[in-house]
């Protein structure tokens, strides 16, 4: 019940902020930032024992509010405007296929929608893991074939519904989805971790070092978690609730 109400409020907020962004992106960002600031004061989570958390929490909640804003803006036809916020990044252009671009649900995830256009070869974007086993197998099979034809596959390493691999992470355990690691094992291709983050009102893409090709899915998942852990240790304000949910 509480979850449903929260989802409705979030959707409504998203549409209001998105509508505002259509007329004045600057005002919409200011509103989202104010909301994030307010939430960071009232929310008790996340907690970081022994760490000065105010600034970190503010960053986390501001990013969350901005994600809500981008969702609404996109739903109201702001896709192109959002794409224009994403800075060019030579590291993205330099990536060479075949390769899996593994993303995480942290930062302004809507900014990742530019990837397919900015990569140097055709890319296949895999979203979610819905459908029957057979439908998912078809998607997986097509992705392998796309990699064999020297393409990119873009997919999240942390989708909500998936078979998972448990790996050490920030002193605990992280449950990453198995799909990308199985795909990398079968196709013998590297995974490059990639996330988006805010820099002022622009979105920058952060490209990690490709994970070494391996036939061991657990080893690959551990390497991905290590990359994410280091990223979050360097920038703890990028921590998202999706990551917390997977811990």
């Amino acid at each position, binding site marked *: 019940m509480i979850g449903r109400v929260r989802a409705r409020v979030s959707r409504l907020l998203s549409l209001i902020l998105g509508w505002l962004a259509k007329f004045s992106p600057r005002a919409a960002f200011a509103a989202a930032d104010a909301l994030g600031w307010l939430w960071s004061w009232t929310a008790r989570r996340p907690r970081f024992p022994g760490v000065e958390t105010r600034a970190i929490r503010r960053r986390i909640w501001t990013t969350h509010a901005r994600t809500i804003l981008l969702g609404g803006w996109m739903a109201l036809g702001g896709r192109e405007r959002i794409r224009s916020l994403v800075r060019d990044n030579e590291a993205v252009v330099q990536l060479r296929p075949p390769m899996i671009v593994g993303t995480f649900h942290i930062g302004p995830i809507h900014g990742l929608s530019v990837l397919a256009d900015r990569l140097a070869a055709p890319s296949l974007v895999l979203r979610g893991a819905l459908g029957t*086993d*057979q*439908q998912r*197998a*078809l*998607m997986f099979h097509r992705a392998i074939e796309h990699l064999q034809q020297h393409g990119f596959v873009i997919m999240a390493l942390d989708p909500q519904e998936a078979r998972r691999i448990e790996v050490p992470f920030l002193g605990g355990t992280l449950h990453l989805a*198995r799909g990308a690691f199985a795909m990398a094992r*079968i196709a013998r291709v590297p995974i490059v971790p990639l996330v988006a983050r805010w820099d002022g009102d622009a979105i920058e893409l952060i490209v990690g070092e490709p994970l070494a090709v391996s036939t061991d899915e657990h080893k690959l998942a551990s390497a991905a978690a290590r990359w994410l852990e280091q990223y979050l240790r360097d920038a703890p304000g990028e921590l998202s609730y999706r990551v917390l949910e997977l811990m």
Partner: protein
Amino acid sequence: MTIDNAVLEIVRARAARPLSFDELSNDVTLGSDGLGLDSIAIAEVLLDCQQKFGVSVTGLLEGEPLTLRRLVAHLQQETPA
């Protein structure tokens, strides 16, 4: 080795649990409502078949549920004699 026996061996190798030959009836599906293979294992079975017989099998995943019978029939039809 006949095609159906080769396919049965491929499927058994990819199953998460040991499969008896009784379970491998021709009408059983490969997914969770049949042999219990997950999506990755199903894709791997097809990739193994593709590699072993040199026949494209992607189309089998579209439409009706994939059974061993359909898989074997497709391979028998497409594999050069």
